[in-house]
């Protein structure tokens, strides 16, 4: 410090200036500009908080400048905030410079709202005006000054703009020429009376140098430090009285803070204008439609339909070409080459490997298109809107807000969705959300729909897929409503999210996404689907008298009576059962059992089964028990009982819905 050769007495008579502000508002810059080399760094007594102090001279007067720790408010929550407020109360600086960031004025002003409640006069240093201007904000310092009743000095400290004016204002205040008439934040009327009562009760007992008004306010806020202080100083009887009032108004913290934000809101309204810039304007215009309560749903449904349409129009012909020109010739080749050596091996390779798992690979065109469309929607920023619209749709039905996140995750894959239920604190809510998750149609289930719908329904595939998804979502919504009514009993949790700005899709990001997901699918085809296809083939070939007399047929026929209720023969029942290992196995199994004849699997399916059976099979497929990976995740998250309950629930729901769909379709003439 620049105090050598001067007595401490005269140093004390130098005006004392405190520099307050939230972190990152440019406090260090201002402090260094003012004090230059005349500064000293130490610690606040008894604290590990850094204390910076220095001096500067202007017009022959030397000022002492103390840099208070950067804080967002003046509660007793952190040592920094305690240090800052204790300094102002005990040292009574001649002036407190409150530095605020003009570019984030709303956030910055909260500390000022607390500072004006203390006895030292405040000057606001409106820093970073250059940044605010660059962002298109227009701030009128005079109007701000008029609303706050506090001197406001606009500045850009990093460009040394406004610092001289700040020093002049400090000089004026130190000389006593600053008529300080701050408009303090007001507390809501009902709490104002409570505050007055507390002030009346404590005033004569408040120790020096604490201002009684401020102490009363802090008591009402529930400030631990001040509560301790007054408990020690008030006579027991008086403390009881105060304590009773405080206990009856535990929510007063919000009322006090509310007054401060109201105060900030008035200042902003008076002094700040923000023009809407291009990207924000465009996003708002688009969102007026995309997030409209009704229009948003229509758009979501339309986008879903368009996704299916695009997938089928481009993907299905490609799939059929691959099946006809790659899979079939390959299977025939394998048969021709291997038949002379071992008919058994020829069957395994041609029907089991190529007809099952290999056939799954013909899905790649469908999946690539599907993943690409999803990737574009995600990258453009639409998926967040879809989530928002869906929540708005589910919300009136009373679905718990926090359940929404895991449920939304489920559209990708049910496994992370089940794990994602951990974000829900309440055990009961977590359990029930985990039970609902497998009702969300995941990508794998959608893949099966995407293959079977065009096979069964040709040009009507888009409409059918669309209907199947809506059906799955309706079942989810109905279960959600029931569960929410029974378990949450109207309790609701909010979830605030800021929707990202729309932007043009980045081909690289989307390409990478499609590549990763496709690779994952190929890996699944090789590791999970292949062995099951081989087992299915083996069971369909043994003991050797043809498919119809195989072990698989025996098991399938045993279950067939149940399947008949919804129009399924033993092949479809077996296909459904193998979907437990991985959803796509349904198709691989049908490939093994049906696909080796003329015309490819799609045509054989259409020729073998009536439309009513196709519809019922699709409905059951999207609602049937989830795959083994999801079931394992369920066991881990909700235990054996929860898992078994889910299996029972989904079996019952899928069979009931499948049966309804089948008989309605038959009544409608699709039999």
């Amino acid at each position: 410090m620049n105090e050598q050769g001067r007595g401490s007495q005269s140093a004390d008579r130098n005006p004392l200036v405190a520099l307050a502000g939230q972190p990152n508002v440019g406090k260090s810059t201002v402090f260094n500009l003012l004090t230059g080399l005349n500064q000293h760094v130490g610690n606040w007594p008894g604290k590990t908080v850094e204390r910076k102090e220095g001096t500067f001279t202007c017009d022959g007067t030397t000022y002492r400048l103390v840099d208070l720790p950067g804080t967002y408010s003046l509660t007793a929550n952190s040592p920094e905030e305690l240090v800052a407020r204790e300094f102002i109360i005990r040292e009574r600086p001649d002036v407190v410079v409150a530095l605020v960031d003009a570019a984030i004025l709303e956030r910055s002003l909260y500390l000022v709202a607390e500072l004006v409640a203390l006895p030292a006069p405040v000057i606001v240093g409106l820093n970073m005006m250059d940044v605010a201007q660059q962002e298109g904000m227009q701030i009128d310092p005079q109007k701000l000054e008029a609303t706050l009743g506090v001197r406001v000095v606009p500045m850009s400290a990093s460009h040394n703009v406004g610092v001289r004016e700040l020093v002049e204002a400090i000089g004026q205040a130190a000389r006593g020429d600053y008529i300080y008439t701050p408009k303090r934040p007001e507390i809501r009327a009902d709490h104002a009376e409570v505050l007055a009562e507390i002030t009346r009760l404590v005033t004569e007992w408040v120790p020096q140098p604490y201002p009684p008004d401020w102490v009363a306010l802090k008591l009402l806020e529930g400030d631990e430090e001040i509560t301790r202080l007054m408990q020690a100083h008030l006579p027991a009887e008086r403390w009881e009285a105060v304590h009773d009032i405080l206990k009856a108004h535990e929510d007063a913290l919000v009322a006090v803070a509310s007054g401060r934000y109201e105060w900030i809101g008035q200042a902003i309204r008076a002094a700040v204008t923000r023009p809407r810039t291009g990207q924000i304007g465009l996003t708002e215009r688009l969102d007026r439609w995309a997030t409209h309560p009704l229009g948003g749903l229509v758009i979501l449904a339309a986008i879903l339909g368009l996704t299916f349409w695009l997938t089928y129009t481009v993907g299905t012909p490609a799939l059929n070409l691959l099946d006809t020109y790659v899979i079939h010739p390959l299977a025939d080749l394998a048969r021709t080459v291997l038949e002379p050596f071992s008919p058994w091996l020829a069957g395994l390779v041609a029907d089991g490997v190529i007809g099952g798992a290999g056939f799954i690979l013909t899905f790649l065109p469908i999946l690539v298109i599907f993943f690409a469309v999803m990737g574009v929607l995600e990258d453009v920023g639409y998926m967040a809107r879809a989530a928002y619209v869906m929540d708005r749709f589910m919300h009136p039905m009373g679905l718990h807000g926090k359940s929404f996140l895991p449920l939304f995750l489920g559209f990708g894959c049910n496994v992370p969705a089940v794990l994602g239920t951990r974000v829900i604190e309440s055990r009961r809510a977590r359990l029930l959300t985990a039970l609902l998750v497998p009702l969300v149609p995941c990508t794998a289930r959608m893949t099966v729909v995407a293959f079977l719908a065009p096979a069964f329904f040709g040009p009507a595939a888009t409409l059918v897929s669309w209907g199947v998804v809506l059906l799955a979502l309706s079942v989810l919504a109905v279960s959600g409503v029931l569960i929410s009514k029974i378990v949450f009993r109207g309790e609701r949790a909010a979830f605030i999210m800021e929707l990202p700005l729309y932007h043009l899709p980045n081909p690289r990001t989307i390409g990478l996404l499609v590549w990763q997901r496709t690779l994952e699918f190929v890996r699944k085809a090789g590791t999970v689907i292949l062995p099951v296809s081989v087992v299915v083939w083996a069971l369909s070939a043994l003991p050797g008298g043809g498919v119809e007399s195989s072990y698989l047929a025996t098991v399938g026929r045993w279950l067939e009576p149940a399947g008949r209720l919804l129009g399924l023969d033993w092949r479809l029942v077996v296909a459904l059962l193998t979907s437990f290992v991985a959803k796509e196995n349904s198709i691989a199994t049908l490939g093994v059992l049906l696909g080796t004849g003329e015309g490819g699997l799609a045509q054989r399916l259409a020729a073998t089964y009536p439309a009513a059976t196709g519809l019922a099979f699709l409905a059951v497929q999207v609602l049937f028990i989830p795959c083994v990976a999801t079931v394992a995740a369920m066991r881990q998250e909700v235990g054996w009982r929860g898992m078994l309950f889910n299996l029972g629930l989904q079996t019952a729901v899928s069979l009931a819905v499948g049966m309804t769909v089948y008989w309605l379709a038959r009544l409608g003439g699709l039999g």
Partner: protein
Amino acid sequence: MIERLLDLLRAGGVRRIADLARELETTPALVEAMLDGLERMGYLRRMDGSEHGCGGAETKNREGCAGCALAGACAVAGSERVWSLTEKATGHMR
């Protein structure tokens, strides 16, 4: 103002900052400031890349979304501003 914000949040559902600002007749920046304030007072919990991530005891991690196993499939991963109400906030309703 912050009480009205809390009331809006307690009604439940996913809310957007822009909508909240419109309903409170103020700026989105002030709504954000109030959300930060509510978080400091313990009424809201951040569910994003901040210190405690999604707030669930088991997924708690210091790297936020980056350290979360679910980030790859999450609708809000990487989004800067997602909050949920704490029990302190919902408890005040009753």
